[in-house]
């Protein structure tokens, strides 16, 4: 497998983290335009940990997840009572505020005579843990997909459990959930924190794959795209968002033919697809049909 394919597959894995993060929130009934903020928090936290303090990547990733969860909690708490477009705009505002804070963050340490660390809009370069530890691109790909696989397994387990049913009920009819004794607010905060941690993990892995991050990486485009992947791929199963990512990046790569027209073709296909499949490709109906066919 050549370097290029490895790179593309790694990117698919990385974006899947934030797509799954958006998906989790949608299932629980909230549409967030702001998961890219937590992706950024994870990236910066992990980068600072490894590049400035020599902390090994696994620990740094854990720190990143904690930071992502904390940030998501802080955003989720004041926005608990918000629904629909209000919630979406609040998360958008929060993510943009995080991004601007990254633009204002100048925090560097001298490592061997060179300043290392986030430097505002100049970005944060030199996150070279993978190089300093001899990790090959193929090895990193395995790491990213290994973690993603673990996350997918967790999702599948949750979807079959009572927790998953509660989650979906929360999304479709929170009043009913409340009457059945579910502590709706606490649950939502928990989901928000988990989604934040998930996005942050993706961000941490992204930072080390790219070795360079800057605030612009975490702008609205990333957030809207990740939401779109979840919605296009379908909300019936955890494989929906993954399918969404695959379709976009797959079309991106497979269409050298459409050089320069890729977005036009893809955008048109998506709009037309949504006319026929408004809940995405793998929506609940399809998933139920598949389950009955193959169960």
């Amino acid at each position, binding site marked *: 497998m050549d*370097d*290029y394919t490895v*790179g*593309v597959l790694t*990117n698919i894995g*990385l*974006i899947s983290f934030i797509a799954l993060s958006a998906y989790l929130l949608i299932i629980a009934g909230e549409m967030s335009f702001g998961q890219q903020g937590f992706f950024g928090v994870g990236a910066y936290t992990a980068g600072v940990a490894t590049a400035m303090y020599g902390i090994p990547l696994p620990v740094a990733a854990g720190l990143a997840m904690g930071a992502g969860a904390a940030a998501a909690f802080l955003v989720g708490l004041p926005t608990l009572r918000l629904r629909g477009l209000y919630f979406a705009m609040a998360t958008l505002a929060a993510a943009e505020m995080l991004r601007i804070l990254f*633009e204002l963050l100048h925090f560097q340490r001298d490592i*061997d005579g*060179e300043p290392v660390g986030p430097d*505002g*809009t*100049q*970005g944060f*370069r*030199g996150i*070279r843990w993978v*190089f*300093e*530890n*001899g990790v*090959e691109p193929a090895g990193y790909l395995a790491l990213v997909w290994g973690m993603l696989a673990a996350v997918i397994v967790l999702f599948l387990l949750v979807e079959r459990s009572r927790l998953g049913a509660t989650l979906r009920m929360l999304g479709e009819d929170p009043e009913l959930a409340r009457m059945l004794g579910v502590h709706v607010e606490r649950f939502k905060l928990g989901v928000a924190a988990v989604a934040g941690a998930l996005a942050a993990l993706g961000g941490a892995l*992204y930072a080390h794959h*790219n*070795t*360079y991050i*800057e605030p*612009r*990486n975490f*702008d609205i*485009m*990333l957030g809207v*795209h990740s939401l779109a992947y979840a919605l296009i791929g379908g909300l019936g199963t955890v494989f929906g968002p993954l399918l969404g990512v695959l379709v976009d*990046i797959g079309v*991106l*790569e497979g269409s050298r033919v459409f*050089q*320069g027209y890729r977005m036009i073709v893809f955008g048109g296909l998506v709009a037309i697809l949504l006319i026929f499949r408004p809940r995405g490709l793998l929506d609940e109906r399809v998933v139920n049909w598949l389950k009955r066919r193959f169960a």
Partner: protein
Amino acid sequence: MAKAAFCLVLALLSFPAFAQRLQGELDCKPTKTDFIYDCKVKLSRNGQPLSGAQVTVGADMPSMPMAHNVKPVKAKAGKAPGEYEAMLDLEMLGEWAVKLRLAGPVKDQLILLYEFDEKGARPVRRGDKPPRK
């Protein structure tokens, strides 16, 4: 398992080398085809030109990362020591983060920010200009 240990030993042995930072410069000229640039890469470490590295040149756009997958090209050794040449096919003009990946005896990755327009490529030193419009 043995391979991993070997890599680790290699990495540890070469660790002092990584303490010095890799530096690079890009000099790109537009070609007759739109969005294809003829680029010369100058690599140095500790002020000394770095020859003999296997350089692969890729690019990504800072906003919307991972979306414009420019196919990475292997650079050929150029005339002067530390110089490499590659044809870069971008999909549009604007600011690109050019990714120089080194394989072979020296493994590292360098990211250079350049603004590509009809005349060539200029390094970007971002001031705190508002990213408005």
